């Protein structure tokens, strides 16, 4: 879907930031960074406080009735905005790819779900594809290993966007870990339902990431990053982990995910 770029629009678009439940609970810094980036890209940002979660835990557990109820709530909450942006490929993907499927036999809701799907984006996708945002000049001497999260890369087609933004940071070198788009083992409820399998997947991912000798690890989904950071800390590895929004916002000096604030 090709959306008109918002550059040169006379009125600022009203953008709802869908922070996601994980950012809300674990890492508000990602929410603040996302809001700042969106504002810098020319948006009027609002954070509707009726937001909870996109409903994936119910949807992925096969509880469609509950997923539908939550989807209705999300659709109503965001209906009036020009755009909805989430710092997560997985939650944006839920709205964009799966909400319409939930209402296949309710024409009225289907239409509303489609409208929301069309204006919902993952953060880096929105910044690059819709806002044509150019990062202000900034510097960070480091090498970075980027983890492409599964829903981001395969459901939403996000690959170039974070890279094109990150390469604008001078001094930052991007490395590609082996099997960069393979799953880190998080998988929502999967990681607690099958912890041993999840741990093996995480181990494989950790090895691929640390083999790059990068100073920083980043990605676009907090679920994966909590998992990866948790694995690294347990192994005594202090490599810093940030959500991509934090790096783009220039917060790499602050404590990373799972790092002591000191």
């Amino acid at each position: 879907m090709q959306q008109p770029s918002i550059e040169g629009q006379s009125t600022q678009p009203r953008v709802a930031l869908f922070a996601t439940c994980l950012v809300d609970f674990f890492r508000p810094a990602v929410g603040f960074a996302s809001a700042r980036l969106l504002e810098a890209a020319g948006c009027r940002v609002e954070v509707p406080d009726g937001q909870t979660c996109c409903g994936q835990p119910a949807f992925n557990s096969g509880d469609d009735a509950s997923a539908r109820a939550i989807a209705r709530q999300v659709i109503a909450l965001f209906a009036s905005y020009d755009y909805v942006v989430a710092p997560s490929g997985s939650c944006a993907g839920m709205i964009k790819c799966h909400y319409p499927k939930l209402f296949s036999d309710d024409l009225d809701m289907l239409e509303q779900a489609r409208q929301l799907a069309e204006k919902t984006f993952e953060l880096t996708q929105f910044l690059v594809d819709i806002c044509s945002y150019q990062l202000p000049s900034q510097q960070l001497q480091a090498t970075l290993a980027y983890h492409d999260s599964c829903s981001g890369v395969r459901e939403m087609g996000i690959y170039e966007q974070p890279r094109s933004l990150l390469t604008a940071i001078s001094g930052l070198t991007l490395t590609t870990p082996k099997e960069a788009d393979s799953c880190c083992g998080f998988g929502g409820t999967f990681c607690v339902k099958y912890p041993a399998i999840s741990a093996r997947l995480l181990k494989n991912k950790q090895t691929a990431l640390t083999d790059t000798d990068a100073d920083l690890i980043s990605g676009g989904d907090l679920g994966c990053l909590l998992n990866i950071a948790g694995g690294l800390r347990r192994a005594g590895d202090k490599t810093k982990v940030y959500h991509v929004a934090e790096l783009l916002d220039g917060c790499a000096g602050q404590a990373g995910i799972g790092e002591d604030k000191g």
Partner: protein
Amino acid sequence: MKSSARDFSDNAEKALLNPDLRRALAQVREGFVVKRAKAFAELPEFAALRRLGHEIKQHSLEHLDYYLERYERQVIAAGGQVHWAQTPQQARDIVVKICRDSAAQRVIKGKSMVSEEVALNEALEAADFEVTETDLGEYIIQLAKEPPSHIIAPAVHKTREQVNALFRDHHKNLGGKRDASVAGLVNEARQVLRQAFLKADVGITGANFLIAETGAHVLVTNEGNGDLCSSLPRVHIVTASIEKVIPNLEDLSVLLRLLARSATGQPLSVYTTLYNGPAKAEQGAGPKEYHVVLVDHGRSTLLGTEFREALRCIRCGACLNHCPVYTAIGGHAYGWVYPGPIGAVLSPLMLGMQEAHDLPHACTLNGHCQQVCPMEIPLPSLLRRLRQRGFSDRVDGRRSRWALQVWVILARHPALYRFINDVGAWMMGKVARGGVLHRWPMAGAWTRYRDLPTPEGSGFISAWKRGDRS
């Protein structure tokens, strides 16, 4: 084969602790995956071909009755016989009867997943036939008395050392010096199998495709063993499931190009053979009898359901090779004939939700399988649909249902949600030292294997509402 899908979690945990298995499975990730990627990188028309392959199989399924009847007529016209087996039991009975009627003693087999599905070997052995698997992988697992762990590489879970040990045990009558290299082991198996080929009365093979237009069955192998099974014994039996039928040779050419590349990264397998009925009088050599046993086993019912797309599967194994769960735990943990993503779809449908309820859940929904499936089967969506079925049939655990319902109530009540969210984040932030928690009540499954990064201390939404901007 008897299912142990019920014990999935235990089986998986055991598999994870097996270092030999880990070594063996590394070959899958490094071998098949890399070779497939290279093969398709050299095929610019891959996307178009895949679309076409998808349409051919979909069309065949939509007109399955027509093509099956046409296929049957053509087989009969070529002098062969067609037998319809609705259940595994019927399939076993039919094959045993054919073997008995032809006064056979020795049976050799080429690789056939559907024969595993209907547990044919057990039935033949119980009826006192001497059965020898002739595909090298199948032969290895027959000696080891194990089921296959991969749909195209049944012994992929075995290391060379394990195969060597197995051959030492079973080939005691072979003289001469033994060579434990891969080539040496292959030669050793070849010597043993040659005798079996020459003595066999009946050859049983599967079929990769059945051609409605000509009545031929198509066999794709890399070892040529299938061809010996089809041409040396006096009776040839083909076991095939009903969804293998496709309209014509034109369609076959499309599917063959997709199959070998998806499976092993080869442009074409080493042997691709089409067989039409028994040997004609003027041919001299070849089987005198030619039977096709068409197995349904629930497939015609599946056709009418939301799971019909699974029937497009051409058993290439790509979804297994790219599945992070399969490549971590191997095929046996899935507990039945078909492992990996396609197995996690087929097993609950064929064995029942009760038996295999874990399988659709043991997936991170990462989508890699769908991305590589040459038939564009939406495996993650099918797995999700099975989860729905499990949820409405209440086959999943009480604890996880309960936890989910509590969470749903919270998610549907934003004010309450906010309160619990913020109190939780604050408490965890207070308790934690050093940025992570090593343990936390109710997060045991997480903290058993990794630390839990601590929340910063206050929820984002509330902080924003208060006017905080960083």
